[in-house]
């Protein structure tokens, strides 16, 4: 069973400000899901290679020239910034990164 501290640690890594109820719920549920995985310890895996993708492709390169689908190059700055929560003069406004409360 996961401890409350472990859940809070993972939540911090995942940048999720979980409520007390959620912490308890995920503690139980994640422990249940992790139990499903126990059987993988039965396998001997010493000499087995890892697979991260299945295409067999590697280092797919293109020619060093500008080429793009036509409809993608015609996006205006306005269209591109349409979904930004807070803007100032066509720039994305971000809270202070250095010297703010995060600057431990």
């Amino acid at each position, binding site marked *: 069973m996961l401890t409350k501290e472990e859940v809070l640690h993972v939540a911090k*890594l995942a940048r999720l*400000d979980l409520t007390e109820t959620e912490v308890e719920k995920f503690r139980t549920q994640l422990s249940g899901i992790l139990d*499903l995985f126990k059987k993988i310890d039965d396998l001997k895996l010493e000499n087995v290679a890892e697979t991260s993708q299945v295409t067999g492709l590697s280092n797919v390169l293109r020619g060093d020239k500008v080429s793009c689908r036509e409809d993608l190059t015609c996006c205006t700055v306005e269209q591109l910034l*349409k979904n930004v929560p807070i803007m100032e003069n066509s720039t994305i406004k971000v809270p202070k990164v250095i010297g703010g409360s995060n600057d431990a």
Partner: protein
Amino acid sequence: MHNLTIAEASKKLESGEISSLELTEAVLNRIEELEPKIDAYLSVLKKEAVEAAKKSDQRRKSNKTLSKIDGIPLALKDLLCTKGIETTAASNILKGFVPCYDATVVKKLKDAGAVIVGKTNLDAFAHGSSTENSDFKTTKNPWDTTRVPGGSSGGSAAAVAADECLGAIGTDTGGSIRHPASMCGVVGLKPTYGRVSRYGVIAMASSLDVIGPIAKTTQDAALILEIIAGRDDLDATTLDVPVPRYSESLDNDLIGKKIGIPKEYFTSGMDKDVEVVIREAIKKIKSLGCEIVEISLPHTDFGLSVYYILQPAEVSSNLSRYDGIRFGHSVLKKDQNLSLEDVYSKSREEGFGDEAKRRIMLGTYVLSAGYYDAYYKKAMQIRTLVKEDFKKAFENVDAILTPVSPTPAFKIGEKSDDPVQMYLSDIYTVPINPAGVPAISTPAGTVLRDGKELPVGIQIIGPQLGEEIILNISHQFEKISGMKYKSPEI
């Protein structure tokens, strides 16, 4: 008119018997009539669809028809970006998000003249097997509206089954096309990984995600796949292999084809009635001249673990982009004095639903220091073994038959509080994605529950890029399955 297949409608459009506008209006009327019961759509694009239909009719008049799907009303899972049209992934965190470009698949469909009638519901970010994880609504199964349509592409499958479109696009990371196709009695094809471009499709688990058709018939699925498949400069994982004319090899005979039945898929846990349907379907496929052989995929038992480690790991990474800064739900709108850290964690806490949080937590855990080797690395190693199982099997057989889901559609609410039970409903579909091979769910029969017929699909799995053979088998089986054109009474 709404109950036509794509192939039928295409012929009628060609002969001038119907116009795309008439067909599109019939479908839009059907949507208006049934949506209060089914809830398949998140948005219906009435104005855009009518306009596209009129343009299609004009093209046809001047003999400039673009493809067999020109003028055909289709639906898109709301995980595909559509230019100028809200794209939500059925999540609160993306509510109101309007992309400035079309996904490659959407562009290809539009370039082929398809009429997009709307965007369908899903489990938020495609996390789930029932659409109950949608942050907006639960889609109902057209065969029994007290039951789920399966998921995550449940809106697309229900819309096709209820004739609220002629065909639809879904996405499949661990069964999200095949599972709802099986539960709604329609055809759903998960292509080979890399066969269809993922560009512009909201990412779930990038090494597993594929995009594919959900249709009333195998032929329709083949027609859609022909349009959407192929190499794309904007997705470096797409395969540079010519796209066959899938719809032209459907009538090949199957005499002497070897079909494998993996013994590991027929163990306890499968509903008895479902097993009867699957066994019967195997007999029918044998009657097409195929040779049925028992095979072994020895690492099947580990498929679920591999999937539920790798997939949340990739999910946790892909969903880290929703940070409340550049797009999506943001607490900055309420309070600009928050620290950067708080903007991240509070925006994410408010914007993500339960299942997204669960998967982010699980993925972050298996990737975190101290657990990476115990879970993530091992899962990548077992992925090799699962992939090898399939590779070895396909040295001896042309295709593999298995069930799609251990049960027919379950009741709304039945599993929504128990993630482990929900995950187990994907047990027959999830091992396919880590291996990257193609698989199709084809209606095989029905089982009776509470006096209602519920459809059950059979899964036909092929080797890498083996879409032709599985479509061929699916099409031939469809002719004798008794399920073609069988539709629910709504």
